């Protein structure tokens, strides 16, 4: 039996499990990712460990140690047994790891500073990385050298549109973003957008799966939705309590639902906010439709929704699992 994505069903998601490490190992979880089919969740934390979970049964499966190189921004490739992640020690190479053999397949070399975000193309075996070395690079999984470089001030944000043919590059401090056609990178972006209203604290960009919207998410109580074709600002999502300021980037405090009709966002009051923009008139400030109670004693700053199953996770020190539960 499958679950529709509606206001009613979203309001029935409940916090069912929390995973927390020993006190001496507590460190922020800096990335959350599901595989293409939503079967597994992979987290990376600042204690140099990645954790693999079965996301359907909400069970912990494995620790993937990376004490030698550190780990950040881990992402599944299109294979459930492979991931790429950035290094925080020894070098700034991106590492391609086979989770079946526990052997590295390849190192992607070239970045000169921490890679703070990696995004996998939805279309093929390419990916892009954003780094503090003031560059965004595009890679092919089969080749250790970057295919393309885009100069970019830091901090910067990256996102693929759902076709995998267009990428968005954002510069929050200069309040601008641009869209590039991947087949015509040398021509520059085909669309440049200036963000209005002084909104400059966003740390995540995400296209909706229907390709219509681009979300600029922040941890400071406000998110923006712009039109993915024209860049026109459509909605301002408010109504959540901002988290304390923090410089380093994480998985982002808001995300689209897989149908692109709703946005889920974390709140420093310990709740999960739900906004519905698809049924709203544009150029509006939207408040949450409703809230989901958060996991107790947990401060889930980042949020990621499963692309195929009725569950999502929040994370910071702990990982909290929320599942649709219509049992009364």
């Amino acid at each position, binding site marked *: 039996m499958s679950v529709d994505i509606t206001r009613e069903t979203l309001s029935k998601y409940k916090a069912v499990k929390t995973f927390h490490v020993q006190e001496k190992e507590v460190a922020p979880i800096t990335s959350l990712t599901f595989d293409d089919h939503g079967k597994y969740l992979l987290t990376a934390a600042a204690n140099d460990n990645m954790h693999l979970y079965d996301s359907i049964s909400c069970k912990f499966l494995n620790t993937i140690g990376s004490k030698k190189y550190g780990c950040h921004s881990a992402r599944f490739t299109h294979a459930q047994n492979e991931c790429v992640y950035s290094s925080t020690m020894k070098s700034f190479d991106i590492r391609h790891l086979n989770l079946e053999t526990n052997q590295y397949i390849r190192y992607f070399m070239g970045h000169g500073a921490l890679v703070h975000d990696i995004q996998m193309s939805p279309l093929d075996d390419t990916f892009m990385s954003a780094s503090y070395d003031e560059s965004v690079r595009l890679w092919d999984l089969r080749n250790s050298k970057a295919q393309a470089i885009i*100069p970019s001030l830091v901090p910067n944000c990256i996102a693929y549109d759902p076709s*995998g043919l267009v990428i968005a590059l954002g510069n929050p401090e200069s309040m601008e973003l641009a869209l590039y056609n991947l087949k015509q990178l040398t021509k520059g972006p085909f669309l440049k957008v200036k963000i209005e209203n002084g909104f400059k604290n966003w740390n995540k960009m995400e296209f909706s799966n229907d390709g219509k919207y681009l979300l600029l998410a922040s941890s400071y109580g406000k998110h923006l939705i712009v039109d993915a074709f024209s860049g026109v600002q459509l909605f301002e999502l408010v109504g959540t309590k901002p988290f304390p300021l923090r410089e380093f980037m994480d998985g982002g405090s808001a995300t689209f639902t897989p149908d692109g009709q709703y946005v889920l966002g974390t709140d420093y009051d310990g709740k999960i906010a739900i906004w519905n923009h698809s049924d709203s008139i544009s150029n509006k400030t939207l408040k949450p439709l409703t809230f989901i109670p958060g996991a107790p004693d947990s401060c889930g700053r980042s949020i990621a929704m499963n692309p*195929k199953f009725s569950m999502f996770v929040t994370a910071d020190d702990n990982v909290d699992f929320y599942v649709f539960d219509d049992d009364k």
Partner: protein
Amino acid sequence: MSNNIIPQSVNVSHALSAVIIQEMRNNLDILSKREQLNATEENLLVSYISQLNQTIIDFNNDNKDVKIDKEGVTMADIELIKGLTALYQDYLGKFNEIQQRIHKENKPVRKERRQSVNLDEGVRALHESTNQKGENTTIKNKNVPKIKDIYIADGTKKKQDNIPIEDTTIPETKEELNKKKISFDKYKKKDDSPNDTLKRSNSSDSEDSITKKIKLDTNETNSNSKIRSILKNPNDIMDSEGSEVPKRRNKKKLSIKFPEEDDLVRVYGEDLPNEGLKVTAVELKKILRPFREGEPNEKVLILGFRSRAKPLNLSNIRVKDSDISDTRNGPIKCQTATPILYRDNFKSFSKDLNKPPREPIPELNNNQDKSSPLVAQAYGRNGLLLRNDRGGIPYKRVPEVKRNTYPPRAN
């Protein structure tokens, strides 16, 4: 056939480089001297065998047309092919020998089958008999059936290679083993005061031991007995005359199952009340299995939650006639080279993921690719980065990832 002494027709694109051959030679010496291999060395051995097998196949395939009677083929070509093939097969044979030798030596002795035991009836019988005797009844009451020694498995031991360690605390020789002391302070409850004042002291000679003995009826070893040893089949170890019989080899290991009763288990030990600490089976499991290094502890927030996440209904939102990839619910098929076996329903994760991964096999063609990446046109203020003076833009410090110092809630 040409008499040229220099090989000209051999395709060496899949041949192993001299560096790799030298590395294999060095490691062959080392591995052949080892009586046992650790996980890294075993993995290296396996990777070498796999690499050699693949090289032989690819090299022979590349040169299948290089024959004596072909025009342009020299004796040197034939000798080179034979020499390289012989070299690879020689190394392959030696690595295979080492692997076989190691596997032979490492064949584990099978432990006995562990029977799943329902202790329910035995402990209930124990509880009822002690209650019938009123307060201050001790476990050594004569009316309590005599029981055999059983030791609760020490769950604090770490798993090795993700395989639960065979319980070596089975007292075949009744030797005490040093066990990790666990503090039960956090599980103390002030109002925990049962009627009976049973106290069991740790009878272990070792200070660190947390073994606990439960007595079973030694007279009831026949098939009518409802209580059996949870750790070994006594019939396998001792026959009726008390002489040892060889251990059986059994693969299957059955788990212990506790029924859901709050007063089933009472724990005694240091830092605990004299009357013992009443815990449920689930709590006991958590006491005996504290955190493993690097692994999170699970806390269930909804009592009895066993549900699995249901699939989302995404069929009505598929955007037809669009260029959206199917990984995002669109109609365009994802152009990945990943085999279908690994795209979905994969479950064979390595059991050594918590150990450092092996380094990648060096790529042979790396140095040949001298192409530079394409530089895309920058936009907006990013264009200043391409100027010599960076437009005066300062370098940004990479922020440090620190542990959060703020409380989990705003209030």
